[in-house]
C-alpha cells in the first residue's frame, strides 16, 4: 500500500501536463459566456479537431464527459435519471449518461455548467447510435446540426470515390456550417499548420504504443493506453500542448526502457510481466481501477488494444498530412477502427498478437453496445485459429456500474491466465517429449 500512496503522490510529468490540459479545456468550455467562444459538440471517432480549431471553436465530446462521470462514480445515478425519462436498460450507457447529465444541470467536472453547443458536428464513423444520440441532442438544443457521412469500410479498401465523397462534404457542408456558426473565414494554411503538429504528436504516440513490443513492456497499452490516447483523441490534436505532451511521454518511456522498468500502475511500477495479452473492446470505466488491478496483480500486461485505435489508427502508417489537408481528414475518418469491417479488425488483431508476441486475445464485450459487440466471438475464433494462441471473452459495460460483476470478471480472467500457463507447460512438455 505504501507504494500506492507514493505513486499517487508522485505523478509523472506527462500526467501532470495532461491534467492541466484537461483542466484548462474544461475551464475554456465553461467560460464561453465570458469569452464568447463557440462550441461544437462532436464524437471522438473521426473528430475534426484541427478543422474545428480553424474557426476558434472549442470541441465538447459527450463520450468523454460520460467517461469522466463513470470514473468519478457518478454515471450510475445519471443513467437512472435517463431511464426515468424513458430510455430502456439496453440503450448505450454513454447516451444515457449524457442525457442524465443534461437533465441534472449539465455540470462539468470543474463544477460549472457546460455550455449548450452552437453546432452539432456528427462525423459518422460506424456507430449508428451516434446518429440517434445527436437527434436527441438536436431535439434538446435546437442548434445547427451538420453530418459528415463517412462511408463504411465494408470491403476493407478506401477507394478514391469514398475519399472524394468525404472531401466534397467537408467543402460543401461542414466548412460552410463552421463558418456560419463561428463567423470565422476558413483558412487552409491554418489547417495545414495544425495538421503538421498533429503528425508530429502522432509520430511520438506511435513510438510509445509500439514500445510495448519490448518483451518486458514499458507500458500497458490498454489501461495506461487510454491515458496516452487522451490528448490525441480529444480536443488537443493539432495543438502545441499535444506535441509537448507526447515529447514528454516519449522521454519518460525511453527512460523506463533504459532502466528496465515495467508499466506504471496505480500502485507503482508493475513488478513482473507474466502474461502479454491483446485486448479488443473498451475498458469498463466505473470500476476501471479494480479492473486494471485484476490484470497487474496477476502479472498481465496489455501490449496492444483496439480501443486505443477508435479515435484513429496510426500504427500502420497513417499520419495527418498537411500537404493534402482535406484528403487527409477524409482518410483519417475512413480509417478509424470503428469504421473498419470485421475482416479488417481480425487482420489488425492478428497482427497485434504476432507483432507484440502476445499470449492471446482477450475480448471485453460491452453489454449495452449492440453494434460493436456483434461479431466479436467470430473475431476471437478467427484470431485464435490464425495465431494458434488462446482467446477469452469477458462481458462488462462502459459506464453502467450495474453491469460490472467483479467476481465473474475476475473468475474468467484468472481462468484465462491459468489457461495460458497450462498451455505453456503443455507446449514445453511436448517439446521435451514428456507426456
Amino acid at each position, binding site marked *: 500500500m505504501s507504494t500506492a500512496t507514493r505513486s499517487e503522490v508522485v505523478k509523472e510529468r506527462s500526467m501532470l501536463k495532461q491534467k492541466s490540459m484537461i483542466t484548462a479545456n474544461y475551464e475554456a468550455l465553461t467560460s464561453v459566456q465570458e469569452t464568447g467562444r463557440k462550441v461544437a459538440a462532436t464524437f471522438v471517432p473521426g473528430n475534426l479537431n484541427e478543422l474545428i480549431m480553424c474557426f476558434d471553436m472549442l470541441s465538447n465530446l459527450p463520450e468523454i464527459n460520460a467517461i469522466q462521470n463513470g470514473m468519478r462514480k457518478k454515471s450510475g445515478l445519471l443513467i437512472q435519471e435517463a431511464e426515468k425519462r424513458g430510455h430502456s436498460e439496453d440503450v448505450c450507457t454513454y447516451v444515457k449518461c449524457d442525457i442524465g447529465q443534461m437533465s441534472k444541470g449539465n455540470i462539468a467536472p470543474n463544477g460549472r455548467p457546460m455550455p449548450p453547443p452552437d453546432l452539432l458536428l456528427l462525423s459518422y464513423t460506424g456507430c449508428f447510435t451516434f446518429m440517434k444520440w445527436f437527434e436527441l441532442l438536436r431535439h434538446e438544443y435546437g442548434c445547427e446540426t451538420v453530418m459528415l457521412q463517412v462511408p463504411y469500410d465494408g470491403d476493407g479498401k478506401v477507394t478514391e470515390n469514398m475519399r472524394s465523397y468525404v472531401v466534397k462534404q467537408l467543402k460543401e457542408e461542414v466548412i460552410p456550417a463552421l463558418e456560419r456558426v463561428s463567423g470565422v473565414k476558413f483558412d487552409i494554411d491554418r489547417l495545414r499548420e495544425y495538421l503538421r503538429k498533429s503528425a508530429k504528436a502522432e509520430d511520438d504516440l506511435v513510438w510509445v504504443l509500439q514500445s510495448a513490443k519490448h518483451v518486458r513492456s514499458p507500458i500497458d497499452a490498454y489501461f495506461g493506453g487510454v491515458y496516452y490516447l487522451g490528448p490525441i483523441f480529444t480536443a488537443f490534436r493539432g495543438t502545441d500542448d499535444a506535441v509537448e505532451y507526447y515529447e514528454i511521454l516519449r522521454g519518460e518511456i525511453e527512460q523506463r526502457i533504459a532502466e528496465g522498468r515495467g508499466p506504471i500502475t496505480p500502485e507503482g511500477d508493475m513488478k513482473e510481466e507474466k502474461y502479454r495479452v491483446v485486448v479488443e473492446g473498451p475498458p469498463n470505466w466505473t470500476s476501471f481501477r479494480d479492473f486494471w488491478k485484476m490484470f497487474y496483480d496477476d502479472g498481465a500486461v496489455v501490449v496492444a488494444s483496439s480501443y486505443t485505435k477508435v479515435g484513429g489508427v496510426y500504427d500502420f502508417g497513417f499520419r495527418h498530412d498537411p500537404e493534402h489537408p482535406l484528403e487527409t481528414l477524409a482518410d483519417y475518418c475512413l480509417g478509424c477502427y470503428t469504421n473498419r469491417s470485421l475482416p479488417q479488425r481480425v487482420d489488425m488483431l492478428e497482427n497485434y498478437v504476432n507483432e507484440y508476441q502476445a499470449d492471446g486475445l482477450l475480448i471485453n464485450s460491452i*453489454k449495452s453496445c449492440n453494434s460493436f459487440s456483434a461479431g466479436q*466471438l467470430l473475431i476471437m*475464433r478467427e484470431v*485464435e485459429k490464425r495465431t494458434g494462441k*488462446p*482467446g*477469452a*471473452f469477458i*462481458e462488462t459495460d462502459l459506464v453502467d456500474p450495474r*453491469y*460490472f*460483476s467483479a*467476481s*465473474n470478471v475476475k*473468475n*474468467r480472467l*484468472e*481462468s484465462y491466465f*491459468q*489457461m495460458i500457463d*497450462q*498451455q505453456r507447460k*503443455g507446449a514445453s512438455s511436448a517439446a521435451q517429449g514428456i*507426456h
Partner: protein
Amino acid sequence: MKCFVGIDLGSTTTKAVLMDERGEVLGRGITNSRSNYDTATRVAKLEAYISTRLTLIHRALGALPGLLNGNVDTLLGGLERSFRLELFLEQLADLQNICQRQNKRDLRHLGMRQRIEAALDAIFERLRNKLAGLFAPEGSRRSDFFRDLAGSEYMHVAEEVAEDTGINFDILANLYDQSIIEVENHPPSEDIGGKFLRALERVVAQGHSGVSDTATVKSALQGALDVEVEESYVVGTGYGRVQLPFPKEHIRSEILCHGLGAHLMYPGTRTVLDIGGQDTKGIQVDGNGIVVNFQMNDRCAAGCGRYLGYIADEMNLGLHELGPMAMKATKTVRINSTCTVFAGAELRDRLSLGEKREDIMAGLHRAIILRAMSIISRSGGISDEFTFTGGVAKNEAAVKELRKLVQENYGAMTININPESIYTGALGAAEFARRAVES
C-alpha cells in the same frame, strides 16, 4: 501416508477430495456452503477424511478374506451405517441442546417454558427412534446432509407433539429454525477412531457382519485407524476460493479444475459442461485435460442450479423431487425465461393457464439445457467425448433434455455422467495439488 487435498467451494455446496501419491482418490466429502466458507471447508475436509478412513479400512479388511468369508462389503456397509448413525445422533443431541438453550433465552413464552422444554424432549425422543431406521441395512437416505434428514421429520413430529400438548406448532418450528445453522456449523467431534470402534462393536453385536474372528477384525480396523494421513498440499477452487487461508499458488480457477477433473474421470473428454449453483460453464479440453477454451454465463445466474432451487421453493418441493416430476410429463410446456428472479412468476403464469405441474417442470428443464447449449456452442461446440458435471448432472430430467439436444445438434456422441460428478472440480484441484508437489 502423504495425501493431497482439493477443495471446491461452490455457491451451494463445498466439496473436498483426498488423493494419494499415485493419484488414487481416497475420500470425498461434501457439505452445504451456508455462506460460511471457513466452516464449510472444515466440514467438507473432515468428511473427506472420514471417507478416507473408510477406504483405508476397506483395504485393511480386504486383506482378511478368510476371516470375513469374503464378506468385506457387508461388514464395511454396516460399519459405515453405524458410524454415520453415531455422527447423526451426536448432531441430533447437539440440535436438542441448542433448541433447549434457545427456549431458555426466549422471553416471549415465559409461562410456557417448561411445557415447551418437555415438548422438545418428546420430539427428540421420537426423532431418535424414527430416524435411526434410516441407518438400518434396509434404510435409504435421500440426502447425507443433517439438515435434510432431520429437518422435514422434525416438522412432522413437531406437528404431532403440538397437537398432543396444545403448544403452538410455530413456536416449535421457530426453535428449530433458530438452531439448525449453529448445528451445521459445528464440525463432528474429533474422536473419529473411537466412533469407528464403537460402530464395529455395534455391527458385531447385531450379528450382521459375517465376522467370525472379531479380534482380528478389530486389530485390522485399529491398524487402518492408526495410519497417519499427512496433508501434503491443498488446492482450493470455486467461488469462495479467495477466502481460503491459502497463498495464491494454492488457488486454481474452477474452469481449469473442472477440465482436469473431467479428464481424470473420462480421459477421452474433449468438451465439458458444468452446471453448478450459480454458473454454467462450457469448457473445451485437449487430450491431457488442458483447457483450450471456455465460456460461462455472465453475472446473471439464469438457468443455473439456483434457478431449480427457487423453483423447488416455489413449489414447496425438495430439489431432488423436480427431476422425477418432470419425467412424468406428457408434454413440454414452452418456457421463455430462465431468469431466476422471474422463476416464480413464470411458473404461476403457466399454472394459471391450466398447465400441469409436471409438464411445466419438463419445460423448465428444457429451458435450462437450451441456455447451457448456447454457452457450450459459444465455447466451440461439442466434441466427442462429452462430459456433464455439476449438481444438475444428477437431475434425470435435465440429462434427458441434454441427450436429446446433443443428438439433435451434434449427432451421436458419447455422453459421460459420473455418479460422483459433483466432485469434478475438487478432483481436478486435488490433482493440481499432487502435481504441484510432484513438479
